[in-house]
Every structure is written in structure tokens, then in C-alpha cells.
């Protein structure tokens, strides 16, 4: 019965009218699974809404929850945030895969801090980064982060000398599993404490 229905998918809209909700759901679940599984890039939820039988976010969310549960204990997991879905290998079996697939080497402490400063203060300049870290050199860290495509140059600051400004990229959000930049850990707390601005601004 399931297969019978699937063979008619070419006539999607006509067929769906005739079939019951359960079949449509079975269908939709596998459409989402296929689309997301097929891609190396995260798939936007809005895109998925155009592919299933109802343009209904709550319904889609239900299906995504089902998929996540189905893959919960597997070698491959289905993950999503407010915007994107993706399949990725389970972090729990990382050790079996790192030799073959690992692309992100462990970064220096300096590079990690530089990334955090850019993420929380963006857009920001090299001298602002160095001011916060209290050191006068950050070029190596910036190079590494640019190379990973986690940050990008987004123009110049409108102050004397027109220094370059840096901000994080979409790839940064995706690689760190953040829905958007407001998803950064403790962001609102740090804002409230005035730690993301100068002393003057906060007092």
C-alpha cells in the first residue's frame, strides 16, 4: 500500500487529494529524509515546506521530531535548529571516523579566543580584538579563522585609518550548530553585564 502510493508521486497533488493523511505523512517524512540526507549542506526549513503536502510549520516540526527520534541512536543523526536541518555522523562514534574525515584541527587558545571575540563583538577590528585580549598580535589567529571560513572581512570601519572589520560567517553558525548569532552561549547574560561594550558604555 505504501509503495503503491509512492509510485504515484509523480502526480503528487492529484494523488494526495485521494489519499488519507497517514499516507501523506509517510510520504512527507521520507521526502524530508531524502532531501536532507542527500545534501552536504544544511537544508532550510522554508525549502522543506515547499516540498511537503502542507505548508504548515507545526506539522513539519512534528515530522522533524520523528526523524530525530528515529535516528537518535544511530551512526548518523538528524539534527535541526530554527532554520536548518542536516544529517551528520554521531559525535559518539567520532573516534572511528577522525582518521579519515577530520578537517578541523584543534586550534590554538589564541585563535579560539579571537573567534569568540569576533563572534560576540562583531563587526570588530583587529585592534579591538587585540585591546580585549591585551596583546599586540593576532594576525596568525585571524589567518587561521579566515582559512576555516568561520570569519570574513566585511568592509572597513568608518573611523580614521579605515581599518578592516571582521564578522562571523554562515559556515561558523553551521559548524557550531547555532541557529543564528543570538544563539551564542550566554550572549544575553554578557550583554546585560555590559561585558560586550566598553566600560563607559556600560556604566
Amino acid at each position, binding site marked *: 500500500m505504501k509503495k503503491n502510493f509512492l509510485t504515484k508521486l509523480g502526480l503528487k497533488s492529484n494523488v494526495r487529494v485521494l489519499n488519507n493523511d497517514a499516507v501523506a505523512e509517510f510520504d512527507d517524512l521520507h521526502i524530508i529524509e531524502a532531501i536532507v540526507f542527500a545534501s552536504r549542506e544544511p537544508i532550510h526549513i522554508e525549502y522543506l515546506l515547499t516540498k511537503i503536502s502542507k505548508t504548515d510549520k507545526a506539522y513539519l516540526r512534528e515530522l522533524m521530531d520523528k526523524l530525530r527520534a528515529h535516528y537518535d541512536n544511530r551512526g548518523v543523526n538528524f539534527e535541526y535548529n530554527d532554520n536548518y536541518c542536516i544529517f551528520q555522523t554521531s559525535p559518539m562514534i567520532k573516534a572511528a571516523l577522525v582518521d579519515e574525515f577530520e578537517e578541523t584541527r584543534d586550534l590554538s*587558545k589564541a585563535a*579560539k*579566543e579571537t573567534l569568540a571575540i569576533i563572534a560576540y563583538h562583531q563587526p570588530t577590528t583587529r585592534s579591538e580584538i587585540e585591546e580585549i585580549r*591585551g596583546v599586540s598580535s593576532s594576525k596568525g589567529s585571524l589567518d587561521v579563522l579566515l582559512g576555516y571560513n568561520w570569519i*570574513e572581512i566585511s568592509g572597513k570601519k568608518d573611523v580614521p585609518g579605515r581599518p578592516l572589520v571582521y564578522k562571523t560567517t554562515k559556515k561558523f553558525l553551521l559548524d*557550531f550548530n547555532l541557529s543564528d548569532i543570538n544563539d*551564542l552561549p*550566554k550572549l544575553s547574560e554578557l550583554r546585560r*553585564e555590559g561585558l*560586550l561594550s566598553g566600560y563607559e558604555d556600560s556604566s
Partner: protein
Amino acid sequence: MSSVLEVKNHLIIDIEGFEGPIDLLLSLARSQKVDLKEISVFELAQQYINYINSQAALKIDIAADYLVMAAWLAYLKSKLLLPDEPIDEEEEYTAEELAGQLRHRIQRLDAMKTASLLLFEKPIVNRDMFLRGIPEEFDEVTKLIYNASIFDLIKSYINRQDDRVPESISIFKLDYLALDNAKNLLSNIFQKISGWANFFRLVSENKYTENDRSIAASAFSVLLDMVNEQKAHTKQEKQFGEILIKKIGND
């Protein structure tokens, strides 16, 4: 690498990985075991100065940044003992305000260090988990999105940038008469003559380029074609004699 940097790297290695004076201050502040907001800057300044002194006693090179901070802290410390009045003539900060600023900088670095730990402790793509290796395309894949950042472009540019870009390009004028031009030359000549005429003299009167030999060769080649096509008569009275030409018909 400059000597200052070498000194600093040396220092960073030698004193337990502190990356600059604020980092060192943060470490010392944590040892006070109170909330960083409540930290005693007076006490911290003394700790810092003691630490730097102890490092100097060990004859470790101290980078300028650390010494500048030590001097400033010594100054701040002495002012903190005085009544609350502006000590900085230009900006009119009180000692307590300067201490507040320092506290803020220490807290801010602490916050960023914590944030970086939080960011990197969670699973990260391509480090802890991996994505589909063989992406599949569905039929009628039409929309490709190209990934490239300014940084990518600059890298490409740097790799190609060299001195081979010429300031200007000069193209030499060709020094021979093309056959098409020779045909035009001969048709001009034939319009002017009636009866027999000296071919080479006519040609040399209608110079196109400086190279007479090239004109002669091209013109003669065209002339032979015309004879072949029965558009012209030629005759030469003797070996190496003048070549005479005459039009056939009226055209």
C-alpha cells in the same frame, strides 16, 4: 620577526602561557577567589608587581607590555591611597574610575575566554561529526550557489600577482604590403593608364610602406594573377628589362 615579538614569545613560554598583561592580571585576580566584579584592584596591583619582580629575579626577559602595565599599576596603587579626585588631567578620571576600567577589562577577557571554551566544548562539524560525503542531486538541478569570500579572492589574487603586468603594450607596424592592399594599388594604377606603361615605376610612385621590395613583390604577385585572369597584358623586352603593362578591355 621583530625582537619585541621574540621577547614576548619567550615570555609567553616561560611564564605559564600568559598571553599579555591582562591575561596575567586575570589569572592573579582569579587567585583572589572572589567575584571578579568585587576584585580589589589595589591588592591585584601589588600581586602583579610582585609577580613581575619575581620573574625579573629569575632573570627572565620581561616584555615591554608587562613592564608598562607594572609601572601604571604602581602609579594607580599610589593614587588609590589618596582622596577621590581626578588624577588624569586630560580625561579627568578618578583613581577609582581607572580601577573600575581595569576591573572591566579583566572581566571582559574572562568572559571571552569562557565563551571560547563554551563554543569549542560542543561538537563541531568536521571535528566531531561529519557530513554526507557524496551529496546527491535531484533531477533538474538548476540553481548553483557559488561559495567565495573576499578572502578567497584575495588569496587567488596574491597567488597570481606578479610583475608580469606590462606598463604599456606596443605593437609594431607591419612592414609589408598585404595582398589585398596590393590589389587596391594595382586597380588604382590601371585606372590611370592607357596603353603600355612601366610597372615598377608606377608602383614606386604609390608607396604604401617604406619597404619597396615588399611592395614590388606583392604588386607583382597580384599582377601575375591579373594576367592569369586575362585582365592585363605584360611584356618584357629583354632579360632584366623593364616590365610593361597594359589593361585588357575597359575595366
